[in-house]
């Protein structure tokens, strides 16, 4: 037994010293998988950008099951990877345990706050980005009614909806915002059929622009909106390409920038909470050739003016998660 312990200790030490010389950064993708055309893929793109710019290499790991999280973190930390970036709030609990055991390794977690001296917590001001696309929706709507379809009914998604409603009201104070959540269980993220029916129900209530913040359910929302010839708004990554000319814009969460920055800082990563908002290009709205014909110069000018005010602090968008209330909408 003692011999075994010594052997294990020696091999662990060896692994640590061997890794320390390399100090490659590492990234762990959450269950959605690396090529999910959204959140995880954005993170991968950020890492890739760092690799091509610096010529460095990085380690990567894809989660296959819920139970692997802690083990994966330990494995990478023991292997000497530094810093270790992980995508998704679900890593929170595991990281809280592992970070304390590896005080010399730096970690970065996206979408979650973990209070440890060697962890950088990256969170996004989704309400600011949602405010901007909400303004666009308010300006683009002809009926004066716009819709919001959230995935699972959690505070984070209400934060999207609340920012959106505020933006709509700012553009058109007489507008009506129809808010729906897909469900209260994780299956609400993957129910495009229900997303499609919610879209039709909102259209029946007069909505002609619908913002989907609902993961896989949003695919159904965008599809039905395109079929029914109304406008939709994508989320997380640029989804304008999915139905060219029918997706008004997308609320972008620049997860790629967050990963890129973390990799660039390397083992000098600054711990603490890093808020990615409009001011530091953490969130924004997507413009490309697919939606150029939908967004008039006046709309863009109005939205850019609001963005400038938010950046300078002149305009403060209410964050639902700060007090669980929303001035512009009731959930």
């Amino acid at each position, binding site marked *: 037994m003692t011999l075994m312990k010594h052997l294990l200790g020696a091999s662990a030490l060896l692994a640590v010293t061997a890794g320390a010389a390399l100090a490659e950064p590492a990234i762990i993708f959450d269950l*959605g*998988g690396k*090529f*999910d*055309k*959204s959140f995880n*893929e954005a993170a991968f793109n950020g890492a890739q950008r760092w690799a091509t710019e610096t010529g460095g290499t990085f380690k990567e790991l894809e989660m296959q099951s819920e139970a692997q999280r802690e083990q994966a973190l330990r494995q990478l930390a023991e292997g000497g990877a530094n810093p270790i970036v992980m995508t998704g709030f679900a890593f929170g609990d595991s990281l809280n345990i592992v970070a304390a055991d590896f005080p010399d390794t730096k970690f970065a977690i996206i979408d979650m706050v973990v209070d440890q001296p060697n962890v950088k917590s990256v969170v996004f001001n989704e309400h600011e980005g949602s405010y901007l696309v909400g303004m666009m929706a308010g300006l683009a709507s002809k009926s004066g009614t716009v819709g919001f379809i959230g995935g699972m009914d959690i505070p984070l998604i209400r934060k999207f909806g609340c920012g959106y409603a505020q933006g709509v009201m700012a553009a058109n104070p007489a507008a009506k915002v*129809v808010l*729906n*959540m897909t*469900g*209260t269980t994780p*299956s609400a993220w*993957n*129910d*495009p*059929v*229900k997303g*499609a*029916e*919610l879209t*039709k*129900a909102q259209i*029946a*209530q007069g909505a002609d622009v619908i913002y989907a913040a609902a993961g*896989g359910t949003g*695919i*159904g929302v965008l*599809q039905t909106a395109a079929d029914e010839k109304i406008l939709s708004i994508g989320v997380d990554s640029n989804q304008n390409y*999915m139905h060219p000319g029918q997706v008004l814009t997308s609320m972008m969460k620049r997860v790629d920038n967050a990963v890129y920055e973390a990799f660039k800082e390397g083992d000098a990563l600054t711990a603490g909470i890093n808020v990615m908002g409009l001011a530091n290009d953490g969130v924004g709205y997507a413009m490309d050739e697919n939606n150029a014909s939908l967004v008039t110069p006046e709309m863009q000018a109005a939205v850019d003016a609001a963005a400038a005010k938010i950046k300078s602090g002149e305009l403060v968008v209410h964050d639902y998660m700060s007090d669980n209330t929303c001035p512009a909408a009731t959930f």
Partner: protein
Amino acid sequence: MDYATLLQILDSTIRLGIPLLLACLAGLYSERAGIFDIGLEGKMLMAAMSSATVAALTGSVWIGLAAGIAGSMLFALVHGLASITFRGNQLISGVALNFVASGITVLIAQSIFAQGGRTAPLEGGARFLPIDLPFAEALQGVPILGPLYYEVISGHSILVYVGLLLVPLTWFVLYRTRYGLRLRAVGENPASVDTAGVSVRNLRYSAVMITGVLCGLAGAYMACGLQAGFGREMTAGRGYIALAALIFAKWRPWQALGATMLFGFFQALALRPDVVEAVVRVKVPVPALDALPYILTVVVLAGLVGKAIPPRAGGEPYVKER
């Protein structure tokens, strides 16, 4: 609530109810023959993936539909092998197939399309498009019935009408044909069927394969009719709701239609909390509306609305002579 809103909700009811109806009828054949099938969900998922994949690759929704049915029947065959030939536990086989379907659908879709477990979006002839029934436009002016015909009955994809026609067909097969009589008997008392010189094994296999075909229709309708492609876990538990509907309908076809449409109606209502609030004048939480089908099923199971007695030989592998 005005008439137009009611029509919109009924229209939604049909779209949401049809996958449940197809899956419910699928379960009915299997369970009436004495084979419990928890794997409806997995078969639908498999059918959704294979139909969307093949439709996307060939551009033809009909080839996609055939592939969807084939994929679902493959799973049905495995369930048949496990529970009929090898006399395994039917519940365990069904649960296992659900797990396999959940993983393998994403795996195949990812390896073919590399879009995060989704299939490529379907366009044009690769989708079931809505078909307008004759005179729908012309009769729109007729009061009450005209809009009902135009909004609710017309304008669905072909599989909706197939699903509705399957109800009387199933009733006829079960209660008016020799095959139906034997099928019901094999679920109640397989020994008597065996004594009459009819193969229990063949009857049960045929029922399980019919289940595969119907689940194939349900999955293909969801992926190529309601949606334009497959997405991870897109059936979202409808196979289980269909099982609840089957119990609610007490394993009878017409009642299955009623139960699934009722469940579809509740789901459609849950999409319009504003309407519910306007009608009952109290704010009803959406999760409460979502839970209604399950509550009703529990009420039925508790024996408050008559007794729900499953086929007597259900879940029991048949062993000939000892």
